[in-house]
């Protein structure tokens, strides 16, 4: 064979190999993906009751994307989780023991998330896991949980499939982030009438989350007399959306519905501005914290856009427990954490409280079965409303959903949604 053909053949083979791992590019070699929380300050430890036999910390698993395109969101969830863990531990821990999360990098990749879940269960023997951020990753992890009989607390994923009876792993899965359906139901009274979204172009990320959201929002828009003009799905790594936006600009769409993470929303808005578009923009999905979007584009670019969120940090009264919301807001900034992460961080805070309360409700029996039995009894007034798994056969909680708008460079909560 000609030398050049050999090189071409090898190149193609390697390229194919690299493509199959494209969702998790070149981060394999990152130092141990497992990160443990710092111990709490010694004086706080001394305050605990003396129980030498059970002093060993209670471990639980966390799967979040810590590298890859949505690593920022995972880091924010983890920062909220750490605040929650520190608060619980400082107040005496759970069942007199400290909590210790074992945090694994799932990269928001289904395969990696499954590996992380297997490791957490078999290597670390955790009785409960919180994760795995994206819907596709969560759906992949669920059967693993069922096979091993370990409950999963879902903090971010929005796909309806996750809490649909019959989905593999459903019995072991409990979700407090809203389904896209709940978001769309909350937006139903105003999406067409008040926002004037009558001819809508959908531009969503191409996964279970984006596709699920497109479906339920289509139903709501159509039911309220609007219509869907076009539907585009982009990969989470896509950076150039000019082709899609050009088509939308040249259609008769009066508005764009976007479901993806803050980073990609910022990129879309930049290019929306480049084309001089004027369509109303509404983003959904809960990873669209308006401050993060402004930070990743600019206040000017994001001006006038609408965003559905589950937690409005500065409006304490909208949270499940205003006092906790106020404490959290202050503690977050006391720790010097970034503005952009606040909107997404609440998931970790509420999540660890759900886990802690389940442990207490199980009478400190930390077996996965006891926790599974206790979770439906949990009622936690947190940052995103009250977590109570009373829908979808006791597997789904209904958090708050608020419409926010970026106005003069700040996030506001328009009044008309409360009418």
């Amino acid at each position, binding site marked *: 064979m000609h030398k050049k053909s050999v090189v071409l053949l090898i*190149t193609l083979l390697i390229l194919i190999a690299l493509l199959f791992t494209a969702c998790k590019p070149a*981060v394999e070699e990152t130092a141990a993906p497992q990160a443990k929380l710092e111990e709490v300050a010694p004086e706080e430890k001394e305050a605990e009751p003396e129980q030498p036999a059970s002093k060993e910390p209670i471990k639980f698993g966390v799967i979040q994307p810590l590298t890859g395109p949505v*690593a920022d969101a995972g880091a924010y969830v983890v920062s909220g989780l750490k605040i929650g863990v520190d608060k619980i531990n400082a107040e005496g821990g759970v069942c007199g023991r400290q909590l210790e999360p074992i945090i694994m990098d799932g990269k928001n990749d289904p395969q990696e998330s499954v590996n992380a879940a297997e490791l957490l269960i078999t290597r670390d023997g955790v009785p409960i896991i919180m994760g795995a951020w994206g819907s596709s990753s969560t759906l992949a992890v669920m059967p693993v949980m069922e096979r091993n009989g370990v409950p999963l607390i879902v903090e971010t994923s929005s796909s309806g499939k996750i809490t649909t009876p019959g989905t593999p792993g459903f019995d072991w899965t409990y979700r407090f982030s809203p389904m896209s359906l709940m978001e769309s139901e909350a937006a139903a009274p105003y999406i067409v009438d008040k926002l004037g979204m009558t001819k809508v172009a959908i531009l969503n990320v191409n996964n279970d989350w984006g596709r699920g959201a497109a479906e339920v929002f289509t139903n709501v828009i159509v039911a309220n007399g609007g219509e869907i003009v076009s539907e585009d799905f*982009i990969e989470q790594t896509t950076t150039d959306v000019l*082709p899609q936006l050009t088509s939308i*600009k*040249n259609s008769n769409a009066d508005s764009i519905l976007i479901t993806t993470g803050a980073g990609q929303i910022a990129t879309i808005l930049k290019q929306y501005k480049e084309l*001089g578009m004027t369509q109303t923009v509404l983003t959904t999905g809960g990873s669209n914290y308006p401050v993060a979007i402004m930070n990743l*584009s600019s206040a000017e670019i994001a001006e006038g856009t609408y965003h559905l969120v589950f937690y409005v940090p500065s409006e304490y009264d909208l949270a499940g427990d205003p006092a906790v919301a106020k404490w959290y807001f202050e503690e977050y900034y006391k720790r010097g954490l970034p503005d952009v992460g606040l909107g997404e961080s609440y998931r970790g805070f509420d999540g660890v409280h759900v886990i802690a309360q389940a442990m207490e409700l199980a009478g400190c029996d930390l077996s996965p079965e006891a926790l599974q039995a206790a979770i439906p009894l949990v009622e936690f007034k947190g940052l995103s409303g009250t977590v109570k798994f009373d829908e979808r056969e006791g597997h789904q909680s209904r958090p708050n959903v608020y419409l926010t708008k970026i106005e003069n460079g700040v996030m506001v909560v328009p009044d008309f949604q409360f009418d």
Partner: protein
Amino acid sequence: MAEFLQHLINGLMIGGIYALMGIGLTLIFGIMNIVNFSHGEFYMLGAFGVLTLFTMMGIPYLLALLLSAVFFLLFGAVVERGILRPLQNQPVDVAMLATIGLSIFLSNLALIIWDPTPKDIGMPFPLIGINVGPITLTPIRVFIFVAAMLLILGSHMFLRNTRFGKAIRATFQDREAAALMGINTNTVNMVTFSWGTSIAAIAGGLLGPIFQVFPTMGAIVSAKSFAVVIAGGLGNFPGAILAGLLLGVAESLGAGYISSGYRDAIAFILIIVVLIVRPTGILGKARRLG
């Protein structure tokens, strides 16, 4: 029609960058017989270079781009001298593996230095659409396209009209004969690799402001550069330019008219079609460089 023109222009603009990435990769392959899998990481580092200089240190954008280009010229020389030259008498797959290792190393290095959070470079030009007839252009896109074309033209002139360019072309045609004529082929290798590295870094610095910057951003660009180089014919300079522009336009029209979900697949469909129809690349037998 207006929409078609807009898609065409969008495609040409992004295609200019694909072409720029492609010529670097194809030059390195043509001269050094190295398939450089770290090309996408040079692109990523170029974007981080501009982020650091322009966004963090406040140096004017053009100067930041220039400084970053010069830095990566040196960086490429170091990589060539330190990693690739010692391997030049080894089988071709050894250097290939070395570049895969380098790409993993570089993206993890970026992860440590800049953390995984996507970053915004900020807009160096006002973000106002200029309407030219039915199509909308922004200063940044025009700048990116013009810069890419000037760099491609510059590379071409350098190869065509300078004494050193002649040496590079001679080395490309016949390494042994060139060495016998007194050409220092090691220097030729180093200059080629530096040049390729630097233009990949410039491409990253150019596209950075309109996208986000993060450590794994090189992966998909790397894959597309290979598509361009393979479609254009390995080592074929004009082929890479043509294939780059073609890919940009095909993606833009494909995503606009067919389905955005298949957008990234278009590059690979292009490779498959070219390999079936013209296995030597779009510009077929043209073996000369420049």
